[in-house]
């Protein structure tokens, strides 16, 4: 995954990982895959919730050493 498709939102309280992802999604093309890095455990819930509500695709989530990696695909 290229750096341009990685949303590194570690240690971000404001605007925070989901807001960073929403901004990145606006710049992405349909079909692009993005990976969010977050140190906020709430992201593991918030991001999949938003992805499902809008209708994008959740590709996977994992946690490693306190960092959450959430992969999504822009579907529309």
């Amino acid at each position: 995954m290229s750096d341009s498709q990685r949303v590194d939102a570690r240690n971000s309280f404001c605007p925070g990982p989901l807001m960073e992802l929403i901004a990145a999604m606006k710049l992405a093309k349909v079909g692009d895959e993005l990976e969010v890095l977050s140190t906020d455990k709430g992201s593991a819930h918030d991001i999949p919730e938003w992805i499902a509500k809008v209708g994008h695709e959740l590709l996977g989530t994992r946690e490693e050493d306190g960092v959450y990696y959430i992969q999504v695909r822009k579907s529309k």
Partner: protein
Amino acid sequence: MKKIVIVGGGTGGTILANNLARRLATELASNQVRITMLSATDKHMYQPGLLYVAFGRMAAEDLYQDQRSLLEPGITFHVDPVKTFDLEHNRVETQAGVSHAYDYLVICTGSRPNPESVPGLAEHANHVYTLEAAQKTFAALQQFKGGRVAIVTGVPHKCPMVPLELTFMMHDYFKDRAMLDQVEFYYTYPIGRLHSLENVGKWAQREFDKLGINYETLFNAKEVDGAKQQVHSEEGSVLDYDLLITVPPHNGMSVILENELGAGGWIPTDPATLQMQGTENVFVLGDTTNIPISKAGSTAHYEAETLGENLSTLVRQGTMVRAYEGKVFCFIEAGKDRATYASFDYLHPPQPQSPTQMIHWFKLAYNKLYWNSVRGLL
């Protein structure tokens, strides 16, 4: 001679230039260092004042000072914005065709509201991110006869407290006019709570519940249907409004996009050193970075102080001495006469206190003190 070129004359660039001019006063006087600022305008705007313009509480003339008057005498200032960044050869070229070589380059061109990115938003919504828009918002509030006021926030946006501040201040505006029984407030927010800062969101929710302000989260505007006075969200909901207020989505400046320095006009930046990624001698400040941090004057201020120290030691010793730790301090107006604040960094979230009149007065004082702050005196 070491040449430092600062591109942009907003809060970050001006604080940095003055900070450097003081630290490197001896080198400036002996022509060992030159500090050059290239800006698009000879006027400096106090942008947070636009919020008060929208409520008739600050006038246009309160917002501006002559940029040159804010700068230390040793700084070379040109109203001649950069057109081309030639990072490979350490040069920038201006719109007037002048080439400036640099040893250190600082890019702080800022951001711009982009309501046009959401169909119908620019035509049908009011905002406070330009003087014209703030004055139009004031007129719309004055003429409003009642109904639903909807607040819609775009992503990303500058000054993350504005969605809440606008809502609280509109509440008190209509309260003073004995119109609260005729006005419904409907606040929306892009993520699953009322503010990106969790503690601020919890505080705002308690305040909103107390004041009877309605809200909907996970709401990102897709388009505005002005004829039907409706906002359609990406998430599938439809919001009716009588008066539409927006905190519009923002972009970086077009010169950043045209020079392909970063997607969306945001330059990939190291969160600690503020170096543009992949470079050693190019630094980025304020809204222009892609750092996942608030786009706000406060952020630019603290970044500029860190960079001022680091650039001066780079010039003198060839090394940087400090890391930017993500410090941000934001006032939050909680109505016409109460305010609180959020202070946080990369590792410590804010713990907002109950609003007080004293903090509101301090914010009003800061509206004047800003001019000393940007001179680097505070």
